């Protein structure tokens, strides 16, 4: 039984506003978990709590039996939790390959001195990382753009590069914040290929997304939030026909 990543009755308040109220969600390895809901329903807040950007005001974030609630963002990355951002956060002055290589930080043993004097260990580490990042980018279809500066990428390339950077982290879970945002139909189809491949490789995927057809088509389970509360969760077919979900989000 592999460990899952779970939000356990999590509550989050910003001043007087309760952004998340007693929300639970379990992300399992090798599963795509869709998270949908209207704007402001708390989807991104929940994602941010899972990877440590906000402390919990109630409940806990757990990785297997381990309580991560008080751990830093960096510590959670070390545990194998990777993410992408709603608006891609790349390093504009760096190449595609260098951007992806940043994801390998947690494997790095070479610190300031080993790097400054280019010790053989540091050089070998860098070579291995470059090779690994190159293979992943090639699989994502970005092999033709490795030496391009990231500010010259188009929107879909930026989104895929963010996934690449997250994959170089060797994630056990990957949290995607609206990965289909701004993509064309054909590009969303390719994104679907990528996400299924991640799932089949045993990675747990959280898919925060507005594109409901895409979510229902690819997810194993779906959770729906409204105004910070969980209103429904289950298999895509159940959620799609839930009267409450239709009323607040999907429309008739």
């Amino acid at each position, binding site marked *: 039984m592999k460990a899952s990543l779970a939000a356990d009755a999590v509550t989050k308040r910003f001043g007087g506003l309760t952004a998340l109220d007693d929300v639970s969600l379990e992300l399992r390895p090798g599963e795509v978990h869709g998270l949908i809901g209207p704007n402001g329903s708390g989807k991104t807040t929940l994602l941010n709590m899972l*990877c440590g950007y906000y402390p919990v005001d109630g409940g806990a974030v757990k990785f297997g039996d381990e309580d991560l609630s008080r751990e830093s*963002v*960096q*510590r959670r*990355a070390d545990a194998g939790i*990777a993410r992408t*951002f709603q608006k891609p*956060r*790349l*390093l504009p*002055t*760096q*190449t595609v390959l*260098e951007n992806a*290589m*940043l*994801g*390998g*930080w*947690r*494997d*790095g043993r*070479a*610190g*300031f001195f*080993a*790097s*400054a*004097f*280019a010790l053989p260990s*540091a050089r070998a*580490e*860098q070579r291995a*990382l470059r090779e*690994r990042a190159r*293979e*992943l980018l*090639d*699989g*994502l*279809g*970005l092999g*033709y*753009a490795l*030496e391009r*500066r990231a500010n010259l990428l188009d929107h879909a390339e930026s989104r*895929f590069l963010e996934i690449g*950077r*997250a994959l*170089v*982290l*060797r994630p056990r879970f990957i949290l995607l914040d609206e990965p289909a945002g701004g993509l064309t139909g054909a590009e969303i189809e*390719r994104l679907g*290929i*990528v996400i*299924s*491949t*991640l799932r089949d*490789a045993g*990675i747990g995927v959280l898919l925060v997304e507005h594109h409901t057809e895409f979510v229902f088509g690819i997810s194993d389970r779906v959770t729906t939030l409204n105004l910070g509360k969980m209103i429904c969760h289950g298999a895509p077919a159940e959620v799609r026909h839930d009267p409450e979900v239709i009323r607040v989000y999907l429309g008739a």
Partner: protein
Amino acid sequence: MSGMRRVRFHTGWAVPLALLASLPWWAGDQYQLHLAALIAAYWILVAGLNLVVGFTGQLSIGHVGLLAIGAYAFAIIAGRHELSPWIALASAGGIGGVCGLLLGLPSLRLPGFYFAMATMAFALIVSELILALGDLTGGGVGLSVPGFPEPFDTPQGYYLLLLGIAVVITWCAWNIARHPWGRALVAIRDNPVAAESVGVPVFRMKLVVFVASGVTAGVAGALFASLQSYITPDTFVFELGLFFFVCIIIGGRGSIAGPLVGTAILTALPELVAPLAKLGTLFYGLLLLAVVLLVPEGIGRLFEIVLERLRPRREASPVLEPHAGRLASAIRRQRDEA
């Protein structure tokens, strides 16, 4: 930086290095040699500061304070206490590093503008302390600074010592810049949230690189003091701290060659071209204005653009087409490695 810069460094370093090493034999006069030694001393500081400002994006304008601390540490240890200049040089570096730690610990968490103000305050405090601690520092009268033993006791020998240290420090900075540890510094500059998300300990890395810049500033201070042979508080005016900062901005962020050229030009030009010397600070101001308006990414980026133009054009970009099989096997392979 792309492969281009790496290649340029590999093929481009041998000739300039040979020219620089043979400078004592072809320099026009002693003054030019002195100027070259001064550039080397400044560069030792700027090379370290460049990692802080150009790579990590922390805008320190107060490194002149660390330079002064290194200079006075050297003058007091080697001059007053008559210890070996080598011990004094190492101590100056160590003291510079400790002062960097003391300054960095409280200030590196501040957002950019406030951090710059903290470093400025530090430089002003140091210069006041030098005046106030007259028993130790000679106050406004200053201190005479001893030189180094044979074979570094001639202008030629001393220049070669400075050049040697500058080359080693440049090599270290270049190594850091191209290894993943140093690439993470650029991530902290360009997008700290993304850096955190992959596990980069942002504050700790800022601190390590700031302490390192304190060490190079301390070493540079010692070498600079010995080159001047006499130091007073007026040797370390606040404008000198701005000067170092401007060398990096003009040279270009995230480049090593750029700030090196910037330091050399800004140090040498006003001295070699008499009309420019009359303009004094105005010259720096105009040059800074020109760079910020015309090439905001600095001289370093200008090199890159020229090289990009010289390269053959790429064909139109292919479609983004993921390959499930290759992606799956890449993921599997990296999991097996771990």
